[in-house]
């Protein structure tokens, strides 16, 4: 990494105390409890602004997932000397283990039109997203996400070399075929593409670099953030961000303490699909310098996670991608328990409501179904060996293997086949689709699943420029946030595949705007 200068100009040795006291006082007025004065806390009040900086960059980006990479690429594209700081020893965050789903109502390949899969529009994407989030979403942010979705995807394809799989999926809560999947059904296809663009534009990335504080002199609305404190091994350094500090540090699903503080139901026993570094310290530090948050208690469970370790592996995507083409979910009773095309929160809590001894539940399908959403026979073959898929030549055989009564499962499948034919689901009112395939020919498969903590919809409050807003509604100068660390796009419940989109779209916005700031 490039050596930074040791600029000392204008850095008075003023303590944060003054600023923190000001935040405390103002927060008092605003009715919020930003109790920075508590002695002995991590947000130690005695922290002094650094006297000198170990490194200086125009734009400093925290986090190396979709949002951070997109932000850094665009910042560098705008001429800013840009660094990404990533605390983990590998790059990519949750993004690199993501399932490769990207929601867009169109793109330059026009897959939907070519496949004759009906209509879609910006408006429809916006409406679905708002409805899926129970209208808690900030409409202006949703609009930006939906509008920019195709362009951001085209950018990754054209400049980053990302490749798409030749399928289009309708996921729970979406009313159109807009879920695109990358060639390998992996977020890595996109992170690699974004990294390629970023590197081409001169972005540097430093791994093993954990941000441990955000420097801001005080909470005056004109007071910009100055930089960050970083822990690298046992070494602590201060890094200055001349133009912008962009937070792209992801969600906090692995932060049990923060989870419990927001939603006590999400005890540590819940599995989690996220990488270990998905913790909320950057949100804490941001609050400590005055940032506002929203929707922090809206935390999503992924209904179809692998039940043992809680991971979201390739088979776990079947549960998500399958309902539009006819998979069903059943419990050990052999009965369905939910409208499979319903939202994630509904599907997850329908399982939890079955009771703890009903773990796992199952996604049921036949050979004819997976090819319709990009599932491959080889995957199923491999997954069977690992015990991820269970196979029965007949329904009865499958029922026996999963401990369900054969006659009940047979009836469930027969009934569902009829609902497809009749276009009506009297049991759960699922909007039946012509694309759904009846299960009338073996072998039959069961895929065990159970909910795991997956996504945090809430986070830092941003405006449509991706700028972080303080508790009084004023922009915090030079501070940006994008991706899962920001809240407000998804409301109470994120629709599948909207996260990738949100991250790339807002990452780009943050990067472009950050580069334009005055140093």
């Amino acid at each position, binding site marked *: 990494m490039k*050596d*930074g200068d*040791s600029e000392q100009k204008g850095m008075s040795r003023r303590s944060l105390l003054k600023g923190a006291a000001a935040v405390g006082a103002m927060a008092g007025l605003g009715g919020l409890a930003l109790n920075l004065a508590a002695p002995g806390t991590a947000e130690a009040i005695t922290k002094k602004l650094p006297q*000198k900086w*170990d*490194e200086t960059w125009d734009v400093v980006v925290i986090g190396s997932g979709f949002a951070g990479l997109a932000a850094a690429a665009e910042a560098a594209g705008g001429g800013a000397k840009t660094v990404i700081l990533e605390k983990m*020893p*590998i790059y*990519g965050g949750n993004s*690199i*283990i993501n399932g490769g789903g990207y929601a867009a109502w169109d793109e330059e390949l026009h897959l939907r039109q070519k496949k004759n899969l009906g209509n879609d529009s910006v408006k429809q994407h916006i409406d679905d997203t708002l409805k899926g989030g129970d209208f808690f979403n900030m409409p202006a942010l949703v609009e930006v996400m939906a509008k920019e979705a195709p362009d951001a995807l085209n950018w990754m394809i054209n400049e980053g070399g990302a490749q798409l799989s030749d399928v289009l999926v309708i996921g729970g809560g979406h009313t159109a075929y807009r879920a695109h999947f990358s060639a390998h059904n*992996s977020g*890595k296809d996109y992170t*690699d593409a974004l990294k390629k663009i970023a590197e081409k534009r001169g972005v540097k990335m430093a*791994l*093993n670099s954990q941000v441990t504080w955000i420097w801001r002199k005080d909470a005056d609305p004109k007071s910009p953030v100055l930089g960050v404190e970083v822990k*690298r*091994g*046992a*070494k602590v350094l201060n890094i200055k961000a001349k133009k912008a500090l962009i937070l792209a540090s992801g969600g906090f699903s692995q932060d049990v303490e923060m989870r419990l503080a927001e939603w006590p139901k999400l005890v540590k026993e819940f599995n989690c699909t996220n*990488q*270990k570094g998905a913790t909320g310290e950057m949100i804490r530090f941001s609050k400590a310098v005055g940032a506002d948050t929203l929707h922090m208690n809206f935390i999503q469970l992924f209904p179809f996670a692998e039940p*043992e*370790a809680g*991971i979201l592996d390739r088979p776990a995507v079947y549960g998500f991608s399958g309902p539009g083409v006819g998979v069903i979910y059943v419990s050990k009773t052999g009965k369905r328990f939910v409208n499979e095309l319903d939202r994630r929160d509904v599907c997850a809590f329908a399982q939890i409501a079955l009771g703890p001894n009903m773990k796992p539940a199952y996604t049921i399908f036949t050979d004819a179904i997976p090819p319709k959403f990009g599932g491959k026979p080889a995957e199923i073959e*491999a997954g069977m*060996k*690992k015990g991820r898929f269970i196979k029965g030549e007949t329904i009865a055989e499958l029922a026996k293997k999963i401990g369900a009564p054969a006659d009940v499962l047979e009836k469930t499948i027969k009934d569902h086949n009829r609902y497809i034919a009749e276009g009506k689901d009297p049991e759960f009112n699922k909007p039946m689709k012509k694309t759904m395939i009846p299960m009338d020919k073996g072998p039959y498969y069961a895929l065990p699943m159970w909910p795991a903590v997956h996504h945090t919809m809430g986070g830092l409050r941003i405006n449509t420029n991706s700028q972080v807003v303080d508790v009084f509604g004023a922009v915090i100068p030079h501070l940006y946030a994008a991706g899962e660390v920001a809240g407000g796009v998804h409301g109470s419940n994120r629709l599948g595949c909207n996260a990738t989109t949100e991250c790339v779209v807002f990452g780009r916005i943050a990067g472009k705007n950050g580069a334009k700031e005055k140093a």
Partner: protein
Amino acid sequence: MAGLFFNVLIICVFLVSLSPAASAAPQKTNLSKPQSCTGCHGEFSSVLPAKHPRVAGKDISACTSCHAPDPQNKATAKPYSSKLHLSHMQPDAKLDCLACHTWKPGKAFGVKGAKKPLGTLPAEGMDQIRQIFASWASSKYLDAHHGKKNVTCSGCHDRKLPESGDTVASDRCLACHGDIEKLAKKTEPKDFPDRNPHKSHLGTIDCVVCHKTHQPSKAYCLDCHKNFNMKIRFGEGGPGAKNASGAAK
């Protein structure tokens, strides 16, 4: 970058071999006495080749007056060996660095009898050296494994003392341990070929993400895939994973 902690040149650079006769078992160590060579070995002749001229003196300056330590590794004639570290740093040797080295905290660090110091070294640096050398000589981890094969600090790190938090670039590992593709072939599980730690869905990751050197190694995969049956050598509690691949050629 400002504020470098240590700029001492690494002391364990290849000053080559002193002598084959090192089998001469040392006599008792007594820490209360000032540590010297002759305190354990009695006479220098007991550890020197037969033809070596007689050596007078008690400590290492007896050697370094003729055999200069050569941290640049440019020596042509008779350089002094850092390999000496290995046997002398074993726990039962109970030797401190300063038996052979000179050091003023924050200032020069050198070898007794050598004209030029190796560099400067602050107190934290000395603590680190003591710790790491002890680990390198006798831990259950990858450092001691390298130690046994006489791969010293600079075999992995540069000639400068590594700073805390520095890592080793994979190229350095692969220079001895070979082509990553070949390594991957060796660790491909027969039952589930896609559960190959050297060829995973994360793509190419740094060797040191899993293979720690001065602490237990751990397969990063297990952070998420808690139920995988995956072993790594030199993990918690020692070598393990007998047939793990990757031994240097």
